[in-house]
């Protein structure tokens, strides 16, 4: 089960010009590649979330630079890059009473799309998705995308 989990890096940031630049600069100089990225804003502050190729190193680099960083387990779900792709996944989650805290997605070059979700009961979600023959993407696979 462990290898189904994706380590997402979250960063607390004030809603101010230049904050993203500072963060990406740190990642760039540490040669860390971002695979998926999103910013959620809530008034004065925001939370940046990202999946990177070297999560531990990214965590350390950002922490040492004084940022408030946390690591969160999320799921990477492969979905079909066609109408109804997301609906297929949401049906499985919804009918099994799994609530999604947040999600972000992007299309890949392979007719597939990647959906990243955070749920409360992650183990339950893995079981439900696998029982419905939905493929979960591991950390290694994310790095190969």
């Amino acid at each position, binding site marked *: 089960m462990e290898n189904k989990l994706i380590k997402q890096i979250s960063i607390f940031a004030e809603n101010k010009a230049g904050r993203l630049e500072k963060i990406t600069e740190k990642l760039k100089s540490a040669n860390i590649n971002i695979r998926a990225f999103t910013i*959620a804003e*809530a008034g004065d*502050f925001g*939370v940046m979330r990202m999946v990177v190729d070297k999560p531990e190193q990214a965590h350390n680099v950002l922490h040492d630079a004084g940022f408030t960083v946390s690591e969160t387990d999320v799921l990477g779900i492969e979905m079909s890059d066609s109408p109804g792709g997301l609906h297929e996944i949401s049906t499985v989650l919804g009918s099994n009473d799994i609530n999604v805290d947040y999600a972000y997605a992007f299309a890949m070059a392979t007719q597939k799309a990647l959906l990243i979700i955070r749920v409360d009961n992650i183990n339950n979600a893995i079981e439900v998705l696998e029982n419905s023959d939905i493929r979960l993407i591991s950390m290694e696979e994310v790095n190969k995308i």
Partner: protein
Amino acid sequence: MIEYWEPLIERMPVDELKAIQEEKLKSLVHYVYNHSPFYKKRFDEAGISPNDIQSLDDVRKLPFTTKQDLRDTYPTGMFCVPQEQVVRYHASSGTTGKPTVVGYTENDIKEWSTSLARGLTSIGIGRGDVVQIGYGYGLFTGGLGLHYGVEMVGASAIPSSSGNTERQIELMQDLGSTAMACTPSYFLYVNEVFKKLGISIANDTKLKCGIFGAEPWSEEMRRRIEEQTGIKAYDIFGTSEISGPLFTECIYQDGIHIWADQFLIEVIDPETGEQLADGERGELVVTTLAKEALPLIRYRIGDLTAIKSGPCKCGRTHPRIMRILGRTDDMIIIRGINVFPGQVEAVLMDIPEVGEHYQLVVDRENELDTLTVQVEVTEDVFSDKISDLMVLEKKVTKALQTVLNISARVELVEPGTIPRSMGKAQRVIDNRKI
């Protein structure tokens, strides 16, 4: 075992202490009347003769002295001795007005050091201790003042002064400091730097206590410091006009001991000037009973506190004052309501998720005062879920509303963004143009 520097004086029965105060007060009024043209004029204008002061209660008849008087008579217009008898000067920076100058005779320095020697002994500092003095040395009274007290009790003083935090840490470790004296906000910053260096005050130093003052701080802040660093945090109090740092708590941390043989204290209603009963909160007024160069009659320090009567568990009989809530000139008025930064601190430090650094920003938007309280989000509480952060924001807002009776906007900011201070922390930014 409780140690005393001068056990006979420190444990003297209250009525004997009062008799000493009365004698000293009676001779003080003659002394200032005869040696200070300022006080002669002040007494004459008030229609008071030194002979009118026959008991401690008569102190109420005497006019107050304020910081403005010291400014108006700059530099030495209130001194009672000629320059030849002055062995030291200190001066205020004058950032909030004209500077003020204070002076000391040889005996004044001795009395000052004695006051501190009693206080240091009462928190267990003596021969064998190493006291790192992180208060500024120079015109500010904090550094040199404490220094002479530390030497008097036979401890080793490290005059590290303020700033250069990594050097402070190096000295603390290499010379084995057992006590550090600085502002509480600076000590928190030192602790942050310790963490950054991957070491800790609890495990990697010999520090057993801190002597913290020069800015108001709350009981909740004390708890934080003690929990995080494993040291005992003691409050020290004083102000340059009445010498400098003078009084501390004892090991029971139950009020600051004011040496009655040297100083007479009252707490007054800041509006009416009337004396308040023990336990009632008001403005502290100090009369110096033993100073020669610059004695002050009923000096309005501006700090808000209450007198705690009754003997302390340590056996000392001198009156105590409660923790300083703030200063009359620290008070900010927001939409007609009085707010003290100390109240805000007490609320914030009671919420475990909130970090130790905070700042109050006051603005005026559309003729309406707004208060924004900025607090730092530490990694310990950051969960990645925005809803958790909003819950925290709401929790702080609600707690502030309950205590302050006004609504404040709470702003979560990144750690390290609120400026760290080497001396007195700047807690309030008032952007109002009034």
